[in-house]
């Protein structure tokens, strides 16, 4: 997906390794960087994102916390207030609900209510997303709750390059960030890529055009980037040219890239896997209505999860989630409007 895709396979790195490298490099560069979470030290994390970090940086900086999401967030807030840069891991992003108050009322608002006195460099990160049979509590994409809580950045990379670059940018941002890692991508071979040898970041608030096209814009992020790319392939076979935009950061949102694409295609499908009502897909539609309504030759369309939890059994899970087919259908409906 990046230029590095041509590199010899042995140098390619997966999404999870990219995250681990980001942590390692930032910890090396910033002696005030800490991380706190459940099973992140001795074990190295449920998925291994923090593997090796404790033995390298010590128990003082890589802290195995009790199963207390609210205390993890709260302690991260306190340490950040007192000069640290804290990465707090939720073992699955689903469990963020147990620390919800500390996030939306304590962490998100600290800068605001102190009129800029207290910076809040905390990244709350964790594995997210469905499609893996994780059922109701190991499949969530609950980013809309946090997009709706002013004061939080919301980030969701879809490639190893972005995973590393966005995590590093998040750790340096100075604002609290909710960082969605797509666990189905952690070890996915097809998306492995070589990463730059030198330090780099992917700035927050910049979308990426993953594929150029002229007939319809597919706006998405996370795992659905790949469904959209496949949908664009399928559309191409039918003579429809799809442009795929990977938002990468939801707050702040890169509206410019969306509108630039819309100016070309005049048709848009917004795809995400969260429940439909009050999800981020609806927000993108509303933003387009706010500022780019006259670019539309057809109604903007959403392809989202149904308004249901994520069920376990595979046929049910597929039934409620976006898929390549559903995206193709929606895109065809839009261009044929």
């Amino acid at each position, binding site marked *: 997906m990046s230029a590095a895709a041509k590199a010899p396979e042995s140098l390619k790195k997966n999404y999870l390794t990219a995250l681990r490298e980001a942590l390692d490099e930032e910890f090396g560069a910033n002696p005030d960087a800490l991380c706190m979470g*459940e*099973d992140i030290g*001795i*074990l*190295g994390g*449920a998925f291994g994102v923090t593997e090796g970090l404790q033995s390298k940086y010590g128990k003082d900086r890589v802290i*195995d*916390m*009790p*199963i*207390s999401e*609210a*205390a993890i967030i709260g302690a991260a807030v306190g340490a950040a207030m007192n000069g640290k840069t804290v990465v707090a891991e939720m*073992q*699955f992003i*689903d*469990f963020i*609900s*147990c620390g919800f108050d500390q996030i939306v009322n304590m962490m998100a608002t600290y800068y605001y209510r102190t009129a800029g006195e207290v910076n809040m460099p905390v990244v709350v990160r964790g594995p997210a997303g469905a499609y893996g*049979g*994780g*059922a*109701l*509590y*190991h499949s969530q994409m609950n980013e809309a709750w946090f997009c709706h809580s002013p004061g939080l950045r919301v980030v969701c990379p879809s490639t190893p390059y972005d995973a590393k670059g966005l995590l590093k940018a998040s750790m340096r941002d100075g604002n609290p960030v909710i960082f969605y890692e797509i666990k189905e991508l952690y070890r996915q071979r097809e998306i492995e890529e070589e990463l730059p040898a030198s330090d780099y970041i992917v700035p927050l608030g910049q979308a990426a055009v993953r594929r150029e096209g002229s007939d319809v814009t597919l706006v998405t992020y996370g795992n659905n980037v790949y469904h959209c790319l496949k949908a664009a392939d399928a559309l191409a076979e039918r003579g429809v040219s799809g442009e795929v935009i990977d938002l990468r950061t939801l707050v702040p949102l890169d509206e410019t890239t969306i509108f630039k694409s819309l100016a070309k295609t005049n048709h848009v499908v917004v795809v995400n896997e969260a429940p439909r009502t009050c999800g981020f897909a609806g927000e993108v539609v509303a933003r387009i209505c706010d500022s780019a309504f006259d670019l539309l030759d057809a109604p903007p369309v959403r392809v989202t999860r*149904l*308004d*249901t939890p994520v*069920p*376990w*059994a*595979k*046929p*049910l*899970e*597929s*039934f*409620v989630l976006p898929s390549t087919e559903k995206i193709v259908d929606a895109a065809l409906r839009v261009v044929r409007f």
Partner: protein
Amino acid sequence: MKSAMKPHPTPGRASEQLTKEDCLEMFRQLYLARYFDVRLIKEKKRGRLRGTLYSSHNQEAIIVGSIFGLRPTDWISPVHRDMPMFFMKDMRAGWRNPDRMGMSIEEVCAQVWCKSGSPGRARDNWSHIGSLEKRIIHSTSMLAGTIPVAAGVVLADRLNGGDAVVLTFNGEGSTAQGIFHEAINYAAIHKLPVITVVENNQWAYGTPVQLEVPTEDVADRAKGYGIPGYIADGQDVFDVYDKVMEAVEYARSGKGPSIVECKTFRAYGHGDHDDDRAAKYRDPHEVEEGRLRDPLAICRRRLIEKSYLTADDAIRFMAEGKSSSEATTEDFPPEVVAYLDEGIRFALASPEPPAEEGGMWVFKESE
């Protein structure tokens, strides 16, 4: 192992009232619980199962000992490591008795195989099932989250004139959750019959108990609420039975909640995906020692002491000390194997739920 509190004069060990049949049944149930685990791991290795299996190997005395003495009207709230509990509830009423207040092995296997015959029609995974009818509370993944629900259930029961108690199960790590505190604090104030059984298996995933609990015993948490904190040898089904029955009696008589800590050891990985890593992050000596006191062996010894088992009978089945890959069908009583076979047969025959069900039952339709 010290006993944390003697909240009221011990009325003699409840297990002394158990008949020979009861004791032999408990022994059988230990085998059944062990076999469930062993068999599922085999099935999983054959690639027939999805999801994660949180092995209850080595913790069967807690499963059997804590629920054996419950009344049919009592409630339980098992979590991830307690799968056998779903079908072992009220099992004294007959393994295949359809009216007993527990799930059938068929239902539980259908759940494990992700089939529509599951009580929840395979909408949520593994241990996230339950039954209103059978009085089993459905957990979410969020640890300790059923304790307040359990409190609400017995609150309603009490208002209706019932005398049910509820047993909620939690790992020691889960006691660090805020909801654990809120729920027990509430139950203690209102003297609700909520018994929190803590299965202290020394590890919460990759985190040792010392990083989850600041006191020597998890039962010490009870002191913060002025409620009894019992400690049981979690490897000894009769000791678990005694301590839980003490808590049950205390709760049923209106005195309120309590905590029963059962000391045990997680014999393998956190889940089956963790077996290899667990072998690295835990000291092999600790693991070896933790597996030494197999609840099957301890129960067998007690039964021999009581002369409930003859020397011959005692060595007929020897699953103890064997990992799931070592143990074979011959290590288990045939009725145990047959029971599982029946469940699995049903599960395999049960259809997958149809896709459209994904969109159903979000809301109850208005009447």
